[in-house]
């Protein structure tokens, strides 16, 4: 299976990069924090429960069962399609982001087990150019969806992003429709998508795949906003209330399903996937009619993935049962 690159996440020291120390004090309550305490608490302040940023390797460590992570689409790397230059070259910004994070892009994608449940998992890293979505984030998302369909796994994505990657111009905007279309393939394969919105998730990521999940959860206090409070205040000269656009406000306005403490996310994701699976088994009792257009994708690679998903689903009577990878 040479389409995968193995990244060992069996112990803290072996992740691609050590989660960086977030300073010595909690930015919310000011109590002193050591690296040890932070790692133990998944970067949540033990004093006030403020959720500090968690980078992508740390996120995988927190969600994937030890030793189960297999990277998908890691070979998809950024290019500089516009030869973009502002006060600096985009290619230089990319080099720096790669050197600083030890990552090749802002989105890590792979397959893993989450408390034993096979899943396709994607995690964004805000340190990498603000977690911005360019061509690589979109293509890795696409390939992650194809892997989910191919291996009949539910999709779980943790987002943290400032929005589209300006340096890729219109091509970054096109990742919005691209990821939305990819999710149509997932939905047609009958597979669920759970998104976990972490601070901050804004702009083009929030306005595309992140809000199209079947179940949306958010970490406490995360800013989840399309335009961002500064732009809103500048444009409308409105004074925004405390907590505007945060997870709790989004819950109140009906935009997300639940706010979940970081330490409980793994458990909650698995519970939701188990509940959703019950319905899938029921659906598959229906016989497939021969005259129905069951392969809407003709002879394209998508059609093959779709057909394979259907076979696996029928064979295993559900996407969680009987799969051993």
């Amino acid at each position: 299976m040479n389409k995968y690159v193995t990244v060992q996440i069996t112990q803290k020291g072996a992740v691609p990069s050590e989660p960086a120390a977030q300073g010595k004090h909690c930015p919310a309550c000011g109590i002193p924090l050591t690296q040890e305490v932070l790692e133990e608490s998944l970067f949540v302040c033990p004093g006030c429960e403020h959720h500090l940023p968690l980078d992508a390797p740390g996120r995988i460590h927190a969600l994937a069962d030890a030793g189960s992570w297999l990277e998908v689409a890691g070979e998809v790397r950024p290019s500089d399609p516009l030869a973009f230059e502002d006060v600096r070259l985009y290619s230089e910004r990319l080099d720096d982001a790669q050197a600083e994070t030890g990552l090749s892009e802002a989105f890590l994608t792979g397959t893993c087990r989450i408390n034993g449940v096979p899943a396709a998992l994607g995690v964004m890293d805000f340190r990498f150019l603000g977690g911005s979505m360019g061509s690589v984030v979109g293509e890795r998302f696409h390939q992650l969806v194809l892997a989910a369909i191919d291996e009949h796994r539910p999709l779980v994505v943790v987002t943290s992003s400032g929005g589209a990657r300006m340096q890729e111009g219109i091509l970054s905007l096109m990742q919005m429709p691209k990821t939305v279309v990819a999710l149509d393939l997932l939905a047609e394969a009958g597979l669920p998508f759970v998104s976990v919105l972490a601070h901050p998730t804004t702009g083009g990521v929030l306005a595309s795949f992140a809000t199209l999940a079947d179940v949306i959860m958010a970490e406490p206090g995360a800013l989840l906003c399309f335009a961002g409070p500064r732009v809103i205040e500048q444009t409308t000269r409105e004074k925004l209330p405390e907590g505007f656009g945060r997870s709790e406000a989004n819950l109140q306005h009906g935009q997300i399903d639940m706010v979940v403490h970081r330490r409980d996310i793994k458990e909650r994701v698995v519970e939701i996937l188990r509940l959703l699976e019950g319905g899938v088994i029921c659906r598959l009792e229906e016989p497939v009619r021969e005259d129905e257009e069951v392969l809407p994708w003709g002879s394209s690679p998508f059609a093959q993935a779709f057909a394979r998903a259907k076979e696996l689903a029928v064979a295993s009577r559900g996407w969680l049962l009987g799969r051993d990878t």
Partner: protein
Amino acid sequence: MPSLPGVGYSEEIRSLEERLEELRERQPSTAVWKVVERARNPHRPQTLDYVEHIFSDFQELRGDRVSADDPAIIGGMGTLAGRSVMLIGQQKGHDLKERQRHNFGMARPEGYRKAQRLARLAEKFHMPVISFVDTPGAFPGADAEEGGQAGTIARTLQVFSGLTVPTLSVILGEGGSGGAVALALTDRVYMLENSIYSVITPEGCAAILWRDASEAGSAADALRITAQDLLELGVIDEIIPEPRKGAHKAHRATAKKLARALEAGLSELEELSPSERRRLRREKYLQMGQVAS
């Protein structure tokens, strides 16, 4: 003392005029910026002008069936070359009063919900969907955010991805980011010669990357936002030429060219089966982007 109606209004007008003056003064003067100016020219034909010139029997349909009708997005049915089509188009307004009424073409969630509703209606009755894009962006206001601006844009894209009827979009003037692409996940995407389509306004990009809004001209160059750029980048299918003086000076002639392009596109798309149209549309968007491997 309660303020009198109209008093706050003229204050608003004055401050907008001041801001316009401010922006005029620091305009850069590159070739690309000339296109930006034309794309934003308030005399440029807008959705309602094309309605008048192209659709003789237009019936406007209003409301999102949830909470409101958004005047930033006009919707309705009309006849184009013998068949009924559904039109969904952003409207900025020409003069200040109109622009305020249409919220400068900046739609709220109710506008995108109206678009979704009309797209589904078109699908139900096998009518092609034509969308006209002309917006600085989706409205960045507290009410819009609380009403789920981001999720509503995402679901609009999802509705367009699922359609099997022919879909065509035209960037009329300004194609501003997520608020624009929300109506432009279509089989064919056209741009008028002097329109722009961008992930962020040149001003916004300059403020973030150059930390200097007066670098908007440099940002406009770097972002590659002209119709020619987008054609080269494989994002759009065709450029609709404008009369030499520009669309703002020739509404009727521009409308004629636009109608011709739409009719040709429709004829091509009608050759395909419904499932084929959707398959090709999805494959097109799955290939968007450029990566190194």
